[in-house]
């Protein structure tokens, strides 16, 4: 697979994502500059974490007007795989590629720690090597990761299986204690209706080697690889 990692001014997890793909997943990877209008044939586009455009106005609100985002939005609308991690998730909601909004953490603190995520849907291109109910240990690092949406829309997400991950206790149960930011229904990551766009606040690219404390993030990348391979085998490239 070929992965493109977008660099906005203020992105700071672009190298983490690049390094994870290149040295751990051992796949082809390129940086995509925000002023470029070429996705370089990427099969997967990663919008990385950081503080694009200084988080001015609202996190992710300015990045959506970058030239590269025009291409990312059309790519996503055509079914291309796009994952937004942390600030990337904020860019995806601001761009309208994912529903809802990410507001200030309920307790107002910037939260940087490992959390437990329960896989809620293993049918997506990003979770297919997991079992439903698997618990992944992956770090978060954000101040505005409180997923908000209206009741009716939350129900739609639940009913459509668009919730990929929820914050949980180590035993897989849900509680407010397991919820690091106040997100509705402990939501940590969602996909669009077609499943090709994923946004998640936790950082899978920071959990890819034992020395980092966990290797559970690899499953997200391996799922994408498996998805793309099965597409190729089926001849739907």
């Amino acid at each position, binding site marked *: 697979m070929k992965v493109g990692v977008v660099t906005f001014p203020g992105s700071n997890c672009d190298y983490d994502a690049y390094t994870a793909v290149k040295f751990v997943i051992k796949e082809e990877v390129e940086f995509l500059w925000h002023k470029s209008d070429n996705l370089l044939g990427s099969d997967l586009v990663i919008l990385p974490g950081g503080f694009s455009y200084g988080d001015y106005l*609202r996190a992710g609100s300015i990045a959506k007007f970058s030239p590269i985002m025009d291409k990312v939005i059309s790519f996503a609308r055509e079914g291309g795989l796009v994952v937004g991690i942390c600030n990337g998730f904020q860019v995806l909601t601001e761009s309208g590629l994912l529903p809802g909004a990410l507001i200030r953490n309920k307790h107002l603190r910037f939260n940087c720690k490992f959390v437990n995520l329960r896989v809620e849907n293993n049918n997506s291109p990003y979770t297919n090597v997991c079992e439903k109910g698997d618990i992944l240990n992956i770090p978060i690092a954000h101040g505005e990761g409180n997923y908000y949406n209206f009741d009716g829309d939350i129900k739609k997400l639940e009913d459509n299986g668009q919730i990929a991950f929820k914050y949980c206790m180590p035993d897989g149960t849900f509680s407010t204690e397991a919820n690091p930011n106040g997100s509705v229904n402990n939501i940590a990551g969602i996909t669009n209706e077609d499943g090709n766009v994923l946004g998640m606040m936790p950082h899978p690219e920071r959990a890819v080697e034992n020395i980092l404390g966990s290797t559970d993030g690899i499953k997200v990348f391996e799922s994408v690889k498996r998805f793309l391979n099965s597409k190729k085998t089926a001849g739907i490239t």
Partner: protein
Amino acid sequence: MNNNQKVVVYVRLKDGVLDPQGVTIHKALGQMGYDEFESVKTGRFFELEIKDSVENIDNRVKEVCSKLLVNPVIEKFEVEKA
């Protein structure tokens, strides 16, 4: 002195959207002994200066609000001519 037009855009969270900053400020007021405030809501405003020659600014202002200044999922806005 120029005759540029000015508008102020006030942006507020929609009813029902959690405002953690407002809640925290409200708590702080309580701790300071100001018990008379029932609630605090935060928001932001933008002052826009518009070239004098431009007519029908209302639609243009509304356009930039919905495209950039406001996140319509969680926020609402009001425009006031200064």
